[in-house]
């Protein structure tokens, strides 16, 4: 790790003020710290945001669940309110990494990082989330731009994420056996009028599978996906899964999601 100045931000304002071209916000540190330790990244200033009051807490209103950016995965996983409103979201958080990671890692850090195999981005897309930042609100569809790339500006802080409550939903993760991130993750949300199928892990950035959505809008049944062959040319390929295998797993995960939809 290279040397840096450390800032303990007490408010959103303070955090934004301390930010510069060569700074980083620190939340759970589960991604940032290892990459600094491995000298893959270094910053002149590190601004700790996880103790900022405005970034905490889970609020459920009639239509949505709003979760502060510094909320830890373990808190989302064990929240009675989340479990009741969107059980799939609690289950998703409970399936991230291991206990240590869940007790440190945060929602804001996860979506700001936008790892192609992270779980939360799929929930954001399927649950029509609105990302609240230090100066605006961004629709999830416009937030996740590309691999590790978001709509955030350098000095822009995620403050909360507001998820719409669907009729039913499910998240199925087929883990990468080594890292246990999502090799493929499918978040399925069923609304009165439509079903949204958001897929993570399979492409450089989270996406909606229109083919799956079409089939399920027609008939919300796992068998309606039986003959579906997704195109593999846009899928990620690496030592853990070929594009063809990933394409097949997306369908398999979607079928399991239909069965598990609650």
């Amino acid at each position: 790790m290279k040397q840096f100045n450390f800032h303990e931000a007490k408010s959103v304002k303070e955090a934004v003020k301390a930010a510069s071209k060569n700074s980083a916000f620190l939340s759970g540190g589960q991604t940032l710290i290892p990459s600094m330790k491995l000298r893959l990244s270094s910053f002149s200033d590190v601004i700790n945001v996880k103790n900022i009051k405005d970034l905490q807490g889970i609020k459920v209103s009639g239509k949505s669940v709003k979760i502060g950016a510094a909320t830890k995965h373990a808190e989302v996983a064990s929240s009675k309110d989340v479990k009741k409103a969107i059980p799939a979201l609690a289950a998703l958080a409970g399936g991230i990494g291991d206990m240590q990671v869940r007790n440190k890692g945060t929602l804001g850090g996860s979506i700001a990082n936008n790892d192609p195999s992270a779980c939360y981005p799929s929930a954001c897309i399927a649950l029509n989330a609105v990302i609240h930042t230090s100066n605006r609100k961004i629709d999830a569809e416009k937030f996740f731009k590309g691999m590790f790339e978001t709509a955030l500006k350098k000095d822009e802080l995620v403050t909360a994420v507001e998820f719409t409550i669907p009729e039913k939903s499910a998240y199925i993760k087929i883990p990468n056996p080594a890292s246990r991130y999502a090799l493929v993750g499918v978040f399925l949300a069923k609304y009165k009028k439509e079903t949204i199928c958001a897929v993570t892990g399979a492409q450089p950035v989270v996406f909606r599978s229109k083919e799956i959505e079409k089939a399920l809008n027609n008939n919300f049944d796992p068998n309606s996906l039986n003959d579906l062959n997704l195109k593999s040319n846009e899928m990620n390929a690496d030592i853990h899964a070929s594009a063809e295998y990933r394409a097949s797993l997306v369908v398999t995960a979607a079928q399991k999601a239909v069965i598990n939809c609650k």
Partner: protein
Amino acid sequence: MASMIGSKVERKEDKKFLTGKGRYTADINLHNQLHAVFIRSPHARAKIKGIDTSKAKKAAGVVDVLTGKDMQDDKIGGLIAGWKIVSKDGTDMKCPAHPPLATDSVNYVGDHIALVVAETLQEAKDAADLVKVDYKVLKAVASTAEAMNSDVIHEGIEKNLCFDWELGDKAKTDEAFSSAEKVVEMDILNNRLVPNAMEPRASIGDYNSSSEELTLYTTSQNPHLSRLVMSAFNAVHPEHKFRVIAPDVGGGFGSKIYPYSEDVIMAWAAKRLQRPVKWVCERTESFLSDCHGRDHITKCSVALKNDGTVTGLKVDTIANLGGYASLFATVTPTYLYGPLVLGLYNIPTAYCNVKAVYTNTAPVDAYRGAGRPEATYLIERIMDKAAKELGMDRAEFRKKNFIKQFPHQQCLVHNIDSGDYDAHFDKALNLADYSGFEKRKAESAAKGKLRGIGFSTYIEACGIAPSAAVMSLGAGVGLWESAEIRFNPTGNISVFTGTHSHGQSHDTTFAQIVADKLGVPMENIELVHGDTDKGPFGMGTYGSRSLAVGGTAIAKACDKIVEKGKAVAANMLEAKADEIEFKDGEFIVPNTNKKKTIGEIAFACYLPGTYGEIKSPLPEGMEPGLKETAFYDPVNFSFPAGSHICEVEVDPTTGETKVDTYTCVDDFGNLINPMIVEGQIHGGLAQGIGQALYENAYYDETGQLVTASYMDYCMPRADNFPEFRIDYTCTPATSNPLGVKGCGEAGAIASPPAVMNAVVDAIGTEVTMPATAEKVWKALKEKSKSAKKAA
């Protein structure tokens, strides 16, 4: 007193390890210590045109930047391969020079180029970025299969071939095949593994310029041998002024049996710079630079009669040695492998050919089981295939070919002293409910899952020692073990062993032996190991040898103590020495109330006052003190064996394999502590199942290690395993008086074929290790494609 041997005594070492009080090399910090980081090659194969250290040398906190040239100037020798293998044409194996720091070429990613030494680790790392190495990058040889047809890596070593070795009677075996009623052939791939000890390697050199003594703290399974090699071959420092300490060591699995470049370099650097120098390996550095394991490609075939009798075996293996020949690299794919390809079957003739090749990958050396897992894997896989092709039940086919009488001289090397293979196989079949398998298979099918069952009936040669045997097979030195029992005047005992415990629980097991032998409570017995200045010279821990060889040395030293104690007791009790009985820590004159405790004897031995009326407790002429040393060199290896049965369930939609049940019945001879044995089995199974389903060290064609972190190298986790069903049978070893055979490697040796046979049984088609979900999914797809074509 209840016998300690055979009881599940809680581990003495648990308290410190479970409360974070283990003291590992990285925990040690010496006054005035410097920190070192390595410049390592990012290329698999390159010539070094120049190393510019000038900027780094001027950086803040930097004390020196050392290169291979500096080592040459100080006449430090290279690393060695310790076991000479002779090729079938009578020529000696060919080993390249292996300088600790490269001088003109690098031969794998992670190869050592320079050492930056600074006041702090931070400064050393910052300065390391300033070292400029000018490389001429060459085309890497990364493939085991292609190594012999690729560019020559080391000048003068044609075809990259270290040796072309053979074992067995070729003519007789050819004859068995030409008269066979059936021949079954198989291609076998044994995947490459990274040992992944929980504690990464580390070493600290410390030179005392006053006494001219050099101390090296290091993560070694074998401190005495490390010192010997570093003194005799690397010329780091004379042995009598060189102390090697291996404190708590967090696992080795073979990867810490021998001194590495880093050890030689820390010892040398400390002496050169006259300050302690510390290096602690980081995890990715460990992936790149620890010696790896396995990496074989094999073609094998069995000759059969139609009734299922195996009449011959042929094995043709290419073994990858990596960039250089590491210390035990040459014996692992030869004498630890070839003799074992027969398994526990009565096969009248066999021929085994091994070609060991160099590639631009990390050196490959012994890894838990070393040679024996590779042998077991091929014989157990091909036995399964042969049974299926003959249309025989796989269990019946195995039993038909088991060795039934002991001792049994195998057609290759080993003379197996004891065993009862039907006994453990029958017990395992029962425990695994083999007869209920079809029902379980149908239940799985109803859930859309594919169930398979796999057997592995195995044997291993352990207790690695017999000097005469190993030297006749090419070892550079004999192998035996030492022990010293030192009674202290107050009656407690220090036990010195030349073995080393790094997860094997010697502190407990060895104390149990001493407690039983001498009738002294466990808490009064302390095991001392891992310090060349404390105990006698010894040979370290590997090859499931510590108990069979080291434990026996301890038992023998105990016997000598008792013998001396009897003479002293007889003198004190005015009886004859041969009358005295020793039981539960007391020397007794039978049929009298005269007795002395062993504590009283120890006290008397150390404080034998004699003056006037006071008579010395020691017989006339006897030396005072109560301390005995024993060296034990057994007459033969020991041969643990057993039967493992695995049942898997495969999800055809994802290809994922779940190990549903795992049963093992092992014959380790007598057990000293069944709980510790169970722990050893668990660990071995985790590694073996890991090899079968998850682990793979993967180099791409340019020689980059793609799986150099836990993000990509898949380690098995606890939730990958079922509750293991474990049981034993016992035929005591006859090669040592404790009747023990060794248990440290069995799990890793037996389990890969058990799992793979189960997977192949479930999916009905071949797949190579590791049987990852994608590979299984693809194999099933191929199978249904070709079935459709055929229809």
